[in-house]
């Protein structure tokens, strides 16, 4: 009788111990990854999701005792759909982290959900400055337009570019870029001889580039979303702007690594400032690019992909520090000030804005080993999200 009850006691003790250990540890940690996988921004979606997959393949899918499960959703570039998916992922699928967000309007739409559900929201792609203000749970690992624009705006007047025509896509990141460029460029002695905004839907660059040519600037400043650079380059070449002595400058979105190689000789000589080039000469980046190209034949990683890679790095690091907890407030608190080595260089999460501080490079498009790359020739360390350094 006593033996039986002892056994029962042991069993009860064992069960009790099992139950008291973090049951959490057995539950998979779901990350809702919302990206535009179809439609005009599909290349962004594919780059980011490829990078996320690669990260998990290389670092394993268990962090702090929890198994990571990524739930990928295609929001087809429609903010209404992004919001709906965010809502469903949080309430229906019990996602504990939201990530992705290929464009600013998509991030804006999902922000209220993150706030209401107190879920960390990692921006891996979008670039407008004020996005983190939309929710206290937003952290960004991609970039901001002012960050990428200020360096080129300061560089140009020092290198015989005094008159510039600006051409940007007419949506928040484009306006961010235009505003930053105008401010910094004129502060350094430059003169804006004309400006144009191209509609975000169905853009046709030909008339705008023609207008730019007619204004006879020293350089044409361009910002267009990732993937549109080819169209701009085509018109730039066709209308003979290079021959007329007009240079092409801008943040690196126009020389997107995803399509740079197929732009042809017209792209050679384009000077941009950006936070990532596939040609960045660090050992870590070389390994990254090689692994990425191996896992995705025919695809070269671009700046969108590192946003995805570093987003996962951030998630993993914070999870390790928090023992697997995804409590929104704790997550953000730990993430603030976190710094690590990324394929792009060193990055830090700004404690004040929850945005990303990173090095920005001056690059020029050159042909290296038969392929086109943006080759870095200067580095501006630790540029803040608002473009100051």
């Amino acid at each position, binding site marked *: 009788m006593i033996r039986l009850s002892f056994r029962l006691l042991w069993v009860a003790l064992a069960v009790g111990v099992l139950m008291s250990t973090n049951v959490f540890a057995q539950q998979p940690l779901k990350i809702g990854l919302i990206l535009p996988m179809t439609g005009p921004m*599909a290349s962004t979606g594919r780059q980011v999701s490829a990078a996320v997959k690669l990260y998990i393949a290389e670092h394993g899918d268990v962090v702090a005792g929890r198994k990571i499960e990524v739930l990928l959703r295609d929001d087809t570039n429609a903010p209404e759909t992004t919001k709906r998916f965010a809502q469903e992922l949080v309430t229906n699928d019990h996602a504990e982290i939201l990530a992705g967000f290929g464009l600013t309007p998509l991030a804006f739409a999902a922000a209220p959900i993150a706030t209401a559900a107190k879920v960390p929201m990692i921006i891996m792609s979008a670039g407008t400055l004020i996005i983190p203000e939309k929710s206290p749970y937003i952290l960004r690992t991609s970039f901001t337009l002012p960050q990428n624009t200020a360096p080129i705006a300061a560089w140009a007047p020092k290198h015989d570019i005094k008159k510039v025509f600006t051409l940007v896509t007419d949506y928040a990141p484009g306006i961010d870029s235009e505003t930053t460029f105008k401010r910094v460029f004129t502060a350094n002695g430059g003169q804006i001889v004309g400006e144009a905004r191209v*509609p975000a839907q*169905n853009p046709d660059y*030909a008339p*705008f580039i023609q*207008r730019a040519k007619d204004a006879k600037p020293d350089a044409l400043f361009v910002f267009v979303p990732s993937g549109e650079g080819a169209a701009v380059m085509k018109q730039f070449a066709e209308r003979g702007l290079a021959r007329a002595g007009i240079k092409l400058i801008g943040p690196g979105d126009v020389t997107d690594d995803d399509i740079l190689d197929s732009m*042809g000789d017209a792209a050679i000589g384009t000077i941009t400032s950006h936070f990532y080039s596939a040609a960045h000469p660090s050992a870590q980046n070389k390994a990254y690019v090689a692994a990425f190209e191996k896992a995705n034949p025919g695809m070269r990683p671009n700046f969108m992909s590192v946003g995805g890679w570093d987003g996962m790095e951030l998630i993993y690091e914070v999870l390790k520090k928090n023992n697997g907890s995804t409590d929104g407030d704790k997550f953000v608190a730990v993430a603030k000030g976190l710094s690590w080595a990324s394929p792009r260089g060193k990055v830090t999460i700004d404690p004040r804005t929850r945005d990303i501080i990173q090095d920005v490079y001056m690059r020029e498009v050159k042909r290296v080993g038969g392929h086109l790359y943006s080759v870095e020739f200067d580095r501006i360390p630790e540029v803040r999200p608002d473009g100051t350094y």
Partner: protein
Amino acid sequence: MLTVLFDGIASGGLLFLLALGLSITLGIMNFVNLAHGAFAMLGGYVAVVLLNRWGVPFLYCLPVAFVVPALAGLVLERTIYARLYNANPLDQVLFTIGIVFASMATASYFMGSQHQIIQLPPFLQGQYHVMAGFDVGIYRLFLLGFCGLIALFLHLVLMRTRFGSRLRAAVDNGRIAQGLGINVNRLFAITFAMGSGLAGLGGALGIEILNLDPVFPVKFLVYFLIVVAVGGTGTVGGPLAAALILGIFDVAGKYYVSQIGAFVIYAVMVIMLIWRPQGLFGRRAVD
């Protein structure tokens, strides 16, 4: 200013080539082929593959870009489209949209979702500087000439050949035409094939100007419909005039009043349709 005009005309010429097939299909077969853009896209991708992967010179790609969609059109027409000629227009819409979706996803799968970039042969690159304020892009000049020749050729075929007169008869009244011994089915098949082939040719020529990606059929569907609606069906001149007007207003609108660029063409279209509901050269439908 002249550059803008010239650009607009070149754009219009390309649009004419692309939309003519749709106009013919609608006019003869009374079939709303919303998948027309898919054939254009097919021609474009065929040209890209030939140019980029197999290094075939650009000019030789063009005939292939015509033939492949033409054959595809022929096969599809005989096998599935023909069964829907008597169907409700709404069912035709559903069917053709199904084809569009399937073709867009297929293109995305095989060719990726980014804009396709090709290198034009050197003799087609660059610009002529005619005078101050007027630069003529060589490729656009080529485009203009090419489309003009095709328009002329088609007009002659339509007006001066037996095939053409049979076609016009079928447009006017299919039943009587059949009663007269005209093989309307074969006519439909050939015209559909040609319309698709022309679209494919337009798609190939347009890679440089319009940007080719899997979303192409939907992106430009609106333009095609505008050309067909404003230009009317049954003639070559109607869609040509409509395409030219559309092209000029589009380019000029974006250049001069870029704040509301696209608004201009839609307003122009609505005004033209209210003024002449049957299209520019179309005849009033016999109810």
